[in-house]
């Protein structure tokens, strides 16, 4: 039972840290949101508040993108480049095969003529 109590205490401490951090975060975002231009450079606390507000704005944008389904997953651009290169290769490969077939056709036509 002592083990269980310790575990509950640990989880409670963990939840408390999150709650405090969340409240601190919300307050920082609120303060940063009311800052005037250039105010971020006035000191470390103002900087943290301003940065928190910017991150919160970015978070809202990300939320909207996720909701509309237009968000690009990390590495998606690199993946797209790879797919494009693969497609280009496949088309070039097809061209090669068509060229070889054309040569065979020309050979047959020459044989028919001569």
């Amino acid at each position, binding site marked *: 039972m002592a*083990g*269980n109590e*310790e*575990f509950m205490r*640990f989880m409670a401490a963990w939840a408390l840290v999150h709650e405090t951090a969340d409240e601190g975060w919300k307050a920082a975002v609120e303060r940063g949101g009311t800052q005037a231009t250039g105010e971020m450079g006035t000191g470390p606390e103002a900087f943290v508040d301003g940065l928190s507000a910017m991150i919160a704005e970015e978070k809202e944008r990300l939320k909207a993108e996720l909701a509309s389904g237009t968000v690009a997953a990390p590495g998606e651009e690199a993946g797209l480049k790879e797919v494009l290169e693969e497609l280009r*290769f496949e088309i*070039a*490969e097809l*061209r*090669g*095969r068509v*060229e*070889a077939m*054309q*040569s*065979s056709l*020309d*050979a*047959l*036509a*020459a*044989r028919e003529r001569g």
Partner: protein
Amino acid sequence: MSARGRSIAWSLARALLAGSLHAGAEARRAARARELRVAFEGLGPAFVKLGQLISVRPDVFGPELVFEMEKLQDSVAPLPVSAVREVIADDFGRPPEELFASFEDTPLASASIAQVHRATLAEEYRPVVGPSLPAGTPLAVKVVRPGSESLILADIAAARPFAERVGRMRRFERYNLPGLLDEFASTLCSECDLRREARVADRFAFDFRDDPLMIVPRVVWPRTGRRVLTTEFIEGWRLSELGRAAERGVNGRILAEHGATVFLRQVLELGRFHADLHPANLFVTPDSRICYLDFGITGTTSPEQRIAIAQVLAATVYGDADRALKYSAELGLVVPEHLQPRVRGEVGELMARTLSVPPRDVRGFATGFLRIMNDAQVEVPVGYGLLVKALVTVEGVARALYPEIDITEAAKPYATRLIARWMLHPARLAQRAPSAMRAAIRELAG
């Protein structure tokens, strides 16, 4: 049985008998393999080709025979140039002079299925991969020997009664010799259609397009048909001529290390690998690049197999027999439960003997491993055998470039990185997270 059939049967029986006269099982196996290789050389092109195909089937034949057949030299008297010209004219409806800016009558090389001539490109051509080849580019024109396909098939037909008779003997039953002859015939027929090889060459050129140390000759498709394959000609030295390369400032160590990595990349990342690597299929260029040639035999690996191969490779280089056998089972090499303690013990002992201290002996390990499986009558899947064999060849090639290389050292970071990437893959994390979380909570809860 035809006269040719009798001659084949006599040569093979004599080789098997001569090889059996040696004392000790190991010496007998090695001698029999040597005698068979000599007999195959004497029996001509079809058997040289057959021997080469045996050398890539460690899943069927004993390791001694597989590694001995690798030494077969596929070199035959050249065809008269008139016959070569006839094949080209037949495939393209025009003589070589009208197809190329120049064409050399003296062949560069002559083997059992095809021979190669030098030529130059008549007009600019845009290949499938990379920049255009300007007019005047040196070319290699590979031409299938007329009638080679039917000659080989006739020899295989002549050898069939012998294979059937030997195949009925108890000790050869499990090899299914007539079935293997059919398989060889079909492989040889596909090798005689050079368009297939051309497609594989282009694929390799594409796969390694960003590798500055690798080069694959690109195909000139308008001059390629069923019996003619035209590619750009790459200047270089064969591995047997490396002394000259070293004199000209080629860095053997860098190439050897890179060669090993290139192979691992083929097997573990791309899923396609050159399965017929031997010194004649590899060149080193004057600008210190590795050039791959001849894509007649290739192997493939699926994504699941790649992870299992990386696990086997990592377990092998770290000397973990248990893990190596566990992941080998995922690749189809299943050791029956009652044999597991014995096989595990033997593999562990073999690892300790061949791989624990430098210089590590990958070839010795592979031969010993396949011998253990062969003795325990454990079936080795085709792809698994091909891979083991290819790894040994890669080590041989790397050692020819730089004798002090230890390819297990090159394999270690590669396999470890791949396994780490796999473990951190979001899909795997998502799959493993709930059970990991449950385990963590259980641990915390005491």
